[in-house]
């Protein structure tokens, strides 16, 4: 009997600590291009903070900004360019730039169309897929290659990567970090220096769990975080 009461009490206590997801979970909205690096950082953060669960939501930055504007429960927002984050500035604390990225030409493995640089993308018969100008990778694309006539403008950089990896396009403009997936070959081009994306990160104003969220942002900005990002191919701000 006493045992049963103790057990019940223990269960209740357990529920007590477990019932506050706001205290033990951090929800991070991050640009699709951060998938690999933030997933690695998530593991480190959860190891250093036992019992904490980081929930990552990866998508195109513009889509995430739209979700935040519509009241999604995010603690942290990491976007792929400053324009996108400026669009939801009202919902965010002051952003800090934590990484930079630039474009590269992704081609199917083995480069069947023999692309060597930006000039080849305008060759007749070459199928090129890029991001739509409304999303950060597309804005960068328009800056470095304004005269490009793509076969399709995709909604985010992963969609471009998928089409190239599947061989349905001869080339696509993606971030250098995305081209490292191993599914495509990358051809760097000097013009890409004209559009370097700054990646800002910020706490949301209504962050359900601000203290823990701040720790995650600190991790991203720390040398551990920076090393992880550099390993993924990002530049330092």
């Amino acid at each position, binding site marked *: 009997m006493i045992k049963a009461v103790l057990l019940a009490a223990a269960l209740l206590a357990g529920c007590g600590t477990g019932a506050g997801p706001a205290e033990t979970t951090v929800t991070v909205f991050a640009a699709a291009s951060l998938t690999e690096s933030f997933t690695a950082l998530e593991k480190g953060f959860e190891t250093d903070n036992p019992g904490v669960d980081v929930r990552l939501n990866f998508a*195109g930055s*513009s*889509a995430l*900004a*739209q979700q935040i504007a519509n009241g999604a429960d995010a603690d942290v927002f990491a976007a792929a360019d400053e324009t996108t984050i400026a*669009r939801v500035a009202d919902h965010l604390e002051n952003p800090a730039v934590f990484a930079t990225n630039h474009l590269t030409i992704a081609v199917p493995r083995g480069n069947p169309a023999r692309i060597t640089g930006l000039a080849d993308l305008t060759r007749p018969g070459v*199928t090129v*897929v890029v991001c*739509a100008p*409304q*999303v950060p990778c597309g804005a960068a694309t328009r800056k470095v290659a304004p005269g490009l006539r*793509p*076969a*399709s*403008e*995709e*909604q985010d950089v992963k969609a471009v990567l998928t*089409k190239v990896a*599947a*061989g*349905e396009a001869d080339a696509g403009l993606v971030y250098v970090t995305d081209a490292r997936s191993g599914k495509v070959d990358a051809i760097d081009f000097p013009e890409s220096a004209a559009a370097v994306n700054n990646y800002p990160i910020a706490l949301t104003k209504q962050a359900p769990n601000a203290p823990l969220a701040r720790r995650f942002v600190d991790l991203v900005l720390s040398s551990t975080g920076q090393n992880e990002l550099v390993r993924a191919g990002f530049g330092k701000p």
Partner: protein
Amino acid sequence: MPGVLWVPAVLGLAIVVLPLVGLLVRADLGNWVEHVTSPGAVAALGLSLRTAAMSTVLCLILGGPLAVVLARARVPGVRVLRAVVLLPLVLPPVVGGLALLYLLGRSGFAGHALDLAFGVRVPYTTAAVVIAQTFVAMPFLVVGLEGALRTAGERYEAVAATLGARPWTVFRRVTVPLLLPAIGSGVVLSFARALGEFGATITFAGSLEGVTRTLPLQVYLLGETDVDGAIAVSLLLVLVAIAVIVVARPRAVERAP
């Protein structure tokens, strides 16, 4: 009818009507005309109407005969075929788009052959949009026509045949006239479905203004950056949908199975 049915019925109606009200309330009606006459929206509307019309014609000239075969042919396996034809109705359209891509894309066997033999590449073209729309819309026509054929029975056709009419004459003078109402409703439904097609199109055809970016794709693109524009184009789609239902034979739609 038990009066209590009113409760779920009203809730059901609310699920259909309230979201449209939400759209209207949030809409920037003052600038609506500006939004829907933007070059992107005009290109998308034109493309949507053109492709939906073409895929409706394809649905009719391919799906019509298919319905007749499914309803009248006495060959083993017809029941299995009937189930297969229903697949696009049940499948998520994005799966249909992937399937089309791996058939007609460069890596697909048919796409590869077409490229080698004729230099024809289907993905990223307006033709790809029409194919995707036909894929998802055809079952609506086939199911409607086949049901009507079964209901009508074969009496008149049999009589015409005993009077000496050849099969083609029977088809032309008896079967088709009997089916006219069902053809009307099938055409309306498949046009509406083609107009709303999104998942298969974006997967298989991509998204490019004037070539493959139909109205639903335009809404999706704007939804992330220009919400007022997205809502305006959505309202345009609602208007076109209402026009399709109201103008094009409301009774025919009601009679559809």
